[in-house]
């Protein structure tokens, strides 16, 4: 059997992949490069771009949505998708705001709202794993239902929450040193989930399930439980994001988050999450968020009409996914 080594070896192994080579092949590296290039170009094009104020505004603009992206990325990795995140975010605000106006303590109201959103996620998870419907359909229905509930509960008008106590508003408006608390919360969520996704056995099962649900079941993994939990987690994080928005705006807006799901999914996919499950990273998805908002911010600074922004964002999504698909095909 000595010489079997050459003979049974399959396709010749690729030239040894160095760490650098590997780094270059990673999705994240490409995204960072693109973002840096845009930074350089923009700092020449607009003196205002690289200022602390603009940077802070930019991060503030995507920080809360970034929390939703975390949940969405995990759900995508497990093979699911959730179109209802925008509506659920709004519903969270509306529930908490309405309860607050009924005289309930804002912290308690927020806890109830997040619990309600978590329950919505569990409800969707139930339909997906027990009834056997597709995520797309279930979350589409919930998207419409949750939005309807928002409008029903508020009569379609924003709820002004002028009497919110300052310590509650601090979540959305306060700063620690020079850094807004919102950004700190965002970073903590990102770091915690990124670490857990990379390192914990619980989240590894999410990858197994998304990569090949049947093989995961044949490895003793309770795939339905995994999908149920990722679906629930995504809604819970959307609910959490809703509370931060409420603290930031001092109001609950029933029409908030229209189209948010598309932005969130786009960011995750640009960052390398696969719509068929099994791959994706939080870090990549956040880079996707950063890229999209650098583009938005740049276009705004360059006085490009807002109407162009969606066209350009959509084109970026298409380009990013096409390039990735092409690279994968070439590698395979």
């Amino acid at each position, binding site marked *: *059997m000595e*010489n*079997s*080594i050459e*003979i*049974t*070896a*399959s*396709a*010749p*192994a*690729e*030239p*040894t*992949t160095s760490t650098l080579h590997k780094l270059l092949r990673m999705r994240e590296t490409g995204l960072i490069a693109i973002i840096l290039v845009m930074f350089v170009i923009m700092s020449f094009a607009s003196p205002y771009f690289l200022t602390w104020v603009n940077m802070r505004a930019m991060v503030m603009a995507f920080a809360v949505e970034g929390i939703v992206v975390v949940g969405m990325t995990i759900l995508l990795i497990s093979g699911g998708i959730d179109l209802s995140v925008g509506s659920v975010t709004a519903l969270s605000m509306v529930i908490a705001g309405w309860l607050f106006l009924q005289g309930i303590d804002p912290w308690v109201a927020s806890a109830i709202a997040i619990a309600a959103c978590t329950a919505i996620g569990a409800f969707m998870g139930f339909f997906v794993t027990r009834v056997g419907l597709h995520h797309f359909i279930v979350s589409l229905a919930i998207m419409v239902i949750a939005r309807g509930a928002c409008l029903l509960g508020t009569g379609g008008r924003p709820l002004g929450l002028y009497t919110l106590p300052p310590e509650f508003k601090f979540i959305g408006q306060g700063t620690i040193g020079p850094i807004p608390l919102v950004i700190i919360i965002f970073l903590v969520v990102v770091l915690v989930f990124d670490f857990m996704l990379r*390192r*914990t*056995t*619980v989240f*590894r*099962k999410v*990858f*197994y399930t998304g*990569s*090949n649900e*049947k*093989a*995961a*079941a*044949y*490895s*003793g*993994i*309770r795939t339905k439980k995994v999908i149920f939990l990722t679906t629930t987690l995504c809604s819970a994080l959307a609910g959490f994001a809703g509370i931060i928005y409420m603290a930031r705006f001092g109001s609950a807006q029933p029409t908030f988050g229209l189209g948010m799901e598309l932005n969130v999914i786009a960011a995750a996919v640009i960052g390398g999450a696969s719509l068929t499950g*099994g*791959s994706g990273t939080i870090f990549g998805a956040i880079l996707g968020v950063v890229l999209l908002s650098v583009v938005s911010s740049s276009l705004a600074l360059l006085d490009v009409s807002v109407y162009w922004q969606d066209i350009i964002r959509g084109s970026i999504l298409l380009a990013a996914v096409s390039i990735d698909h092409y690279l994968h095909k070439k590698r*395979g």
Partner: protein
Amino acid sequence: MPDDVILSISNVSKSFGAIRALRGVDFELRRGEIHALAGENGAGKSTLMNVIDGILKPDSGEINWDGKPVRISSPTKAQKLGIGFVHQEIALCPDVSVAENIFMSTTNISRSFLMDYKGLEAKAREVFRQLSDIDPSVLVRDLSISNQQLVEIAKALTLDCKVLILDEPTAALTEKEAQVLFGIMRRLADSGIAIIYISHRMIEIFDNCDRVTVFRDGQYITTRDVAEIEPADVVNAMVGRVIENLYPDKQAQVDKSEDIILDVQGLTDNKRFSDVSFQLKKGEILGIAGLIGSGRSEIVKGICRLEGDISGDVSLNGEQLDLKHYQDSIAAGMVYLSEDRKGDGIFLDMPISNNVSALKLDQVASPLGLINRELEDGQAERLGNKLNLKCGQLSDPVSSLSGGNQQKVAIAKMLSVNPKLIFLDEPTRGVDVGAKAEIHRILRDLARSGVGIVVISSELPELIGVSDRVLVVREGRIGGVVEGDMITEENIMHLASGLDAQELTG
């Protein structure tokens, strides 16, 4: 008789990047012959077939069709010439009728706006008259795999083909179904069609083909009349070395132990199987035979609690098991290697090390549930070495490996939990000869070291080669057991198709 040559290929090369898949190969096909193409996975068989079918463009070389040089630029062009290709994977539309599937490409070029379903069915019936009695109006999803395969062949035949390429058509067929297919192949060949037959199974090649061409590492090795040579010659040409023993030595009489690893009594799920009882003794390899659909896989999956709602007693090493979920089975030390490797055996796009650790992540993690990469890689490396796994890096996706090495990853995954008992369903399906022999040796070593080994296989020579005892399942019940010299194809087929044990011959 050069006039007989319908297709000849000379000096064709094809590279993918640095990989030279074909290095100046020759191939010649005569009218009316069944020409086997043999070679290990990666030898270049599929690449050559894809060149002939116009899917791939050769880098250099010449293709002659009927004596004239041709360029086959696309599958459509190949179809026009008269080349029909039945791929290994069935690619039919499950939700439409057999007739519509067969005439998919003619419908595609049809000028008429409306579908003529009646006409299609009538034409399909005509095609099937020479093949089998499949009803063209049923949906493809309702057909067995073997009948789906026949639909694929019928589809190729409707294109008035002169050359028919069959890529491992018997991989999913039972012995009996395969025999039917060979009968059809011979009739087609007699009518003048040239058939290229790709298979790993020597017996099939020697029983049914006229000539055989062997490829190795992208190179043409030889073409011989089957009558002139022995199966061993072909195997040796394929692997480029002498394989002395395809199967390892069986258990010696002295090894026989009366310790019972697995004891199954009265296992029933009331749908696929009932009242199944058998035992597995320490040190032996137990084979399970049975036609597809006989319930042989279902029984094993039932024991592991992978599917089905079962009743009955299962004891492992004398301890009665009370399992609720496959997780409990893994914890008890009983694991199942799936027959459908890509479908449910491995995570193709995930790293090798992550595949190996999937059954019991706790083994490579801290008590808090943090995965330790070093432990995980170490585990994959240790088991990979044990199984002689050939791979680049452990972080490479499993999809980068050959079929045999993918299967080794799947086996490593089973071994990662130090199992007491492994059920292997089709352990060498889609695995080349060299790796196959290695896997058989590994199974024997495991059995010797006291791990219970149960092998399910549709390939009778494999079962006969590796098993010390064979359990034959028929229609969800144990049809009989054969042991020692009584393990022959005839005896197994008799039991599988319903004859009494008394009639068996040793």
